[in-house]
């Protein structure tokens, strides 16, 4: 596979010189996100999230399985994500690239390890039956900041999903079809949002939030922060890149706190709108 073409020198200089004047090529302010466009599918737990031209589909489905003997009281959550060459010609289908590893690990940390879904609530019958949630993330197009887009899609899909109601009488488990009883939402502890800031080699250029593809390739380091609207950090990741002063990092964390609150408001509103437009039949 040939190496993807790197940005040309004029392109690079143009981007740097415009960023120096706090101008971005798509007309945003340095600390402005592309407004996420959330589209919900006909099924519960199917979400398409778009940040500009970056598009990701997330889908949740649940099935009942026998839990592993070491954790008989907890449900299972698994995340499947793949960066195929469909998203961008830069991704190879062979061995996972560094970027792919970062994205899958971050998804795992943000959506699974930070205890988003109450796993014990997914237990139906201790040691016998638990729900296995499967979150599949399809990256459709990469126009920069794939990570935030997939995290947002994943978390919204989990919020949107409703599992069938179950009834346990003795050892007998009855799963009610959605048409019989209204499906129940997952019990969730919190809703983390992922925000990525890009830094550039020239120290006079201010960091930008939600970098586009070109900005991301020309950046000299990314700082990714995942946090919820309750001011709790879930993941902070700055793996190398340009060294930053400690105060600068704390300042960015402060900005991220405000942005997460805005994002939370938007997501809540979209979910409410979608739910209002749905008719759930209960016979």
């Amino acid at each position, binding site marked *: 596979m040939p190496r993807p073409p790197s940005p040309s020198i004029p392109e690079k200089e143009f981007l740097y010189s415009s960023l120096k004047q706090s101008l971005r090529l798509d007309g945003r302010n340095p600390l402005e996100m592309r407004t996420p466009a959330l589209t919900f599918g006909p099924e519960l737990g199917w979400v398409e999230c778009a940040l500009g031209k970056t598009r990701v589909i997330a889908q949740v489905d649940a099935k009942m399985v026998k839990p592993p003997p070491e954790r008989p009281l907890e449900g299972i959550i698994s995340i499947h994500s793949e960066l195929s060459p469909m998203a961008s010609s830069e991704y190879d289908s062979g061995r996972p690239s560094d970027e792919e590893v*970062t994205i899958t*690990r971050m998804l795992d940390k943000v959506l699974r*390890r930070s*205890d988003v879904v109450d796993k014990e609530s997914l237990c139906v019958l201790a040691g016998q039956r638990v729900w296995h949630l499967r979150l599949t993330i399809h990256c459709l197009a990469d126009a920069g900041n794939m990570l935030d887009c997939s995290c947002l899609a994943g978390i919204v899909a989990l919020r949107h999903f409703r599992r069938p109601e179950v009834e346990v009488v003795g050892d007998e488990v009855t799963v009610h079809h959605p048409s019989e009883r209204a499906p129940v939402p997952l019990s969730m502890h919190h809703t983390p949002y992922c925000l990525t800031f890009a830094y550039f080699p020239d120290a006079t250029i201010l960091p930008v939030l939600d970098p586009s593809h070109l900005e991301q390739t020309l950046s000299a380091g990314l700082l990714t922060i995942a946090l919820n609207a309750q001011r709790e*950090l879930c993941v902070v990741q700055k*793996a*190398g890149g340009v*060294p*930053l002063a400690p105060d600068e990092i704390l300042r960015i964390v402060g900005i991220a706190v405000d942005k997460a609150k805005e994002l939370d408001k938007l997501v809540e509103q979209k979910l409410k709108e979608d739910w209002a437009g749905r008719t759930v039949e209960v016979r």
Partner: protein
Amino acid sequence: MSSRVEILNDGGYRSDGRRQYELRDISIDTSQQGSADGCCTLRHGLTEVLVTIFGPREAKMRSQTLHDRAVINVEVNVLPFSTGERRRRARADRRILELAATIKSTFEPVVQTALYPRSQVDIYVQVLQQDGGLLHACVNATTLALICAGIPMTDFVCAVSGGVHSTEPLLDLTMLEENDLPHMTVAVMPRTGKVTLVALETRLHVDRFAEIFKLAGEAGQALHKEMKRAVRNRTSRLVDAMETSMKQPVGGERDVVMEDRMDF
């Protein structure tokens, strides 16, 4: 579990008898290992890692070289006996790949790669024992090994882990503490006081974060002194050895020279 281990007791001591801000014992061994250009065995308490550096040398894969700087290649190997429960980890384990990617991107801006175009620096990390603070041990050992290999760097990279127990910040966590507490790893460059690496993976309130973050920065400076002393020791021994070998007559007995070298 019949008895629960107290992470921080009323007297202000931790489960292994340390105070809140006390770091574990550090031992640094930079003696030669095989044909490696630089190596370092670093121990933070019971965590032990061995880093060997090969390079800068010609890259095995010609296609992966860059025309204007050296490529850094990191491979991490976690030995099966390094944890309490013996288990073999696949090389392609995502956690290990991520660790390798983190080390690589931490050192890329610090190592002056522009001095060695079209070459490659290989960093091999062997994790011999794990007792918490794996990432920070790997980063510190890599810094020292790179220095021993004589590869020019702009600064040291000193990493420390920190956590919070209810509201009390703790430094340099052991495995036991890491399993129960929110924790993070911070790597600082002591000369400028800037931060190159921040890794937080567990839920933590923003205000607590700021607290540990600053504390870890200070601890990094303390660690720097220790690391610098190890480098100076090694260099002075090297200089001594060179001076003794200079005194030998030109056609002198080589055995003696070799013996002198064995000292360090």
